[in-house]
């Protein structure tokens, strides 16, 4: 167990006072410390939004990319240097709307990436518009007459897309969240943690109390390997919302499937001019 203070950065936070991103930040630090992952061993790939600012407030390597494009970048990092712990981070808009296409295909490929989605069911950074997980009827800047659309169930989508680890955490219980994030980091393939996050400024429906009244921990005897049951839990949303590892499947991560990565990370190998010369003109 490392000291959590080694991840402290000097950056001034730009989040609202009372934002639950602070609780997620605490959980991430706690998870990294509990796994003895030093700041130089972890690489974050984050998008654009309030959520992706998290790694700014953490001592780590950071590729702060573009809105919605966290996962292609994270995949590139992992394939170039699979010795790194790669954590992708973003919001529900970033990951499920703008990056929805990448989301589905990254899970299918199963690179060893931990994906943390701060799901506040709203666009925070752009000051309150509807997101793919916004409740029906939610009044926002772009849905002044209420949201007409059915919210997406990201965990059910993940299970359908062959995600090998799909979990849900709650920013209102940061100790449990830290444990969940640690499990996700330890998982060898793609691990999604959808984190329920009250937005104190722009989402007046899904408040801390709203979540608190609904969330429950999966029972100890729950078997996350049962895909059909996992679907049912992933779709459970309303009176009760389950927290924990909803689905888990043993699947070799992408980087372990590639024979050329067997000797070690790509960047530690050199193909060399000799080999290139030998190959020249061999394609028919």
């Amino acid at each position, binding site marked *: 167990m490392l000291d959590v203070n080694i991840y402290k950065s000097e950056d001034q936070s730009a989040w609202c006072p009372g934002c639950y991103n602070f609780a997620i930040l605490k959980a991430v630090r706690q998870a990294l410390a509990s796994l003895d992952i030093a700041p130089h061993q972890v690489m974050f790939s984050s998008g*654009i939004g309030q959520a992706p600012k998290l790694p700014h407030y953490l001592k780590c390597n950071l590729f702060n990319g573009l809105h919605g494009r966290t996962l292609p970048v994270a995949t590139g990092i992992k394939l170039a240097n699979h010795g790194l712990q790669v954590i992708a981070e973003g919001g529900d808009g970033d990951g499920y*709307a*703008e990056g929805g296409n990448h989301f589905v295909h990254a899970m299918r490929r199963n690179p060893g990436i931990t994906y943390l989605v701060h799901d506040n069911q709203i*666009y925070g950074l*752009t000051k309150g*518009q509807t997101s*793919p997980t916004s409740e029906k009827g939610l009044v926002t*800047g*772009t849905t*002044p007459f209420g949201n007409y659309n059915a919210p997406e169930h990201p965990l059910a989508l993940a299970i359908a897309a062959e995600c090998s680890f799909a979990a849900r955490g709650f920013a209102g219980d940061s100790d449990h969240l830290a444990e969940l994030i640690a499990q996700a980091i330890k998982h060898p393939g793609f691990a999604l943690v959808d984190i329920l996050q009250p937005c104190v400024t722009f989402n007046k429906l899904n408040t801390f109390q709203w979540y608190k009244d609904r969330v429950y921990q999966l029972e100890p005897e729950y078997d996350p390997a049962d895909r059909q049951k996992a679907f049912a839990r992933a779709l459970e949303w309303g009176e009760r919302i389950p927290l924990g590892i909803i689905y888990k499947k043993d699947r070799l991560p992408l980087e372990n499937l590639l024979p050329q990565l067997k000797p070690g990370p790509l960047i530690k190998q050199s193909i060399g001019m000799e080999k290139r010369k030998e190959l020249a003109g061999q394609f028919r």
Partner: protein
Amino acid sequence: MSKQIKLWQGNEACAEGAMYAGCDFFGGYPITPSTEVAEILASLLPKAGGKFIQMEDEIAGIGTILGAAAAGAKSMTSTSGPGFSLMMELLGYGCMAEIPCVIVNVQRAGPSTGLPTKGAQADVMQTRWGTHGDHPTIALCPSSIEESFKLTVKAFNLAEKFRMPVILLLDEFIGHMREKMEVPRPGELEIYNHPRPKVDPKEYQHYADGSSVGGPYAAMGSGYRFNITGLTHDKHGFPTARLDEIQWKMDRLRDKIDRHLAELTEVEEEFLDDAEIVIFSYGAAARSSQQAVRQSRAKGIKAGLLRPTTIWPFPDRIVTDVLKKCRTMLVAEISQGQLVYEVERCNKSSTPVVPVLRYDGEMITPAQILKAVEEAQK
């Protein structure tokens, strides 16, 4: 009816202008500094029987308005730099398939994520050349809140008439500036709706000769059968590999602009008659340029302003003529200098062309431009 005076933002005036023009479909994705256009239309359009839809990204935003427009709805999207970049592929599709729509780009400082809440005028060349292949471009640049309203209406008119996406190139400065304006009364501004075909559906050609500008064309699903594709196509819209048909299509797209330059070109002039030093400027930068010209005149310097409100097609002929008559032309832009190269291209008289630039996210000031005028005067 009494006068309606409003204290509007540029983005607000743009959304209101779209309502005035008869826009009935908006699809897009939130992004600073354009979000107000979307949020206002999200509220106004449904009340008028129109449709607003927030899509999952900007590619979907332009995609949905192209679909709506092809089906006959007056359609629009709004965005800023990162979203505009994402729209490039389908923008080209709109040009190729000749689909009328309006794309508003409220420019922010780039490149990339840049300065989301600060302004720039650095997307002007992307507006012209951002999508691949030879293609026509029409882009309008408002310098005031009132112009934001009026040029939005004009953008819809031109889109209808020229059957193509028309870009309203706003910037954060004008988009977020508040200014008094008198709202045009219904009927005061022209609203152009393209004619619908009257021929027997069997005779109908979606891309008939004479239909590229001001001619009739049908909405999909209105009883006329045709094809829409991004592939190079014949008069019915079906893909072709025939060299004569390819040539015909490419010339048709080019001629939309080249044969209508007089109609499309629009510039405002101030004190040009006897001007020795002319400032070429557009959009937000033109506001400071205008002030600098007035201050120069007060100091006895013969300065003038050339301000295009239609930036694409570029007013080549006018710029060439003004360059011949003046001693020096200053090009005031909020970028590292983009239109200065267009001005140079039009320079047939070796008149000195001097860029006056600012690109730190802040508004170019009259003082900076005045100083450049005084230097040029020496």
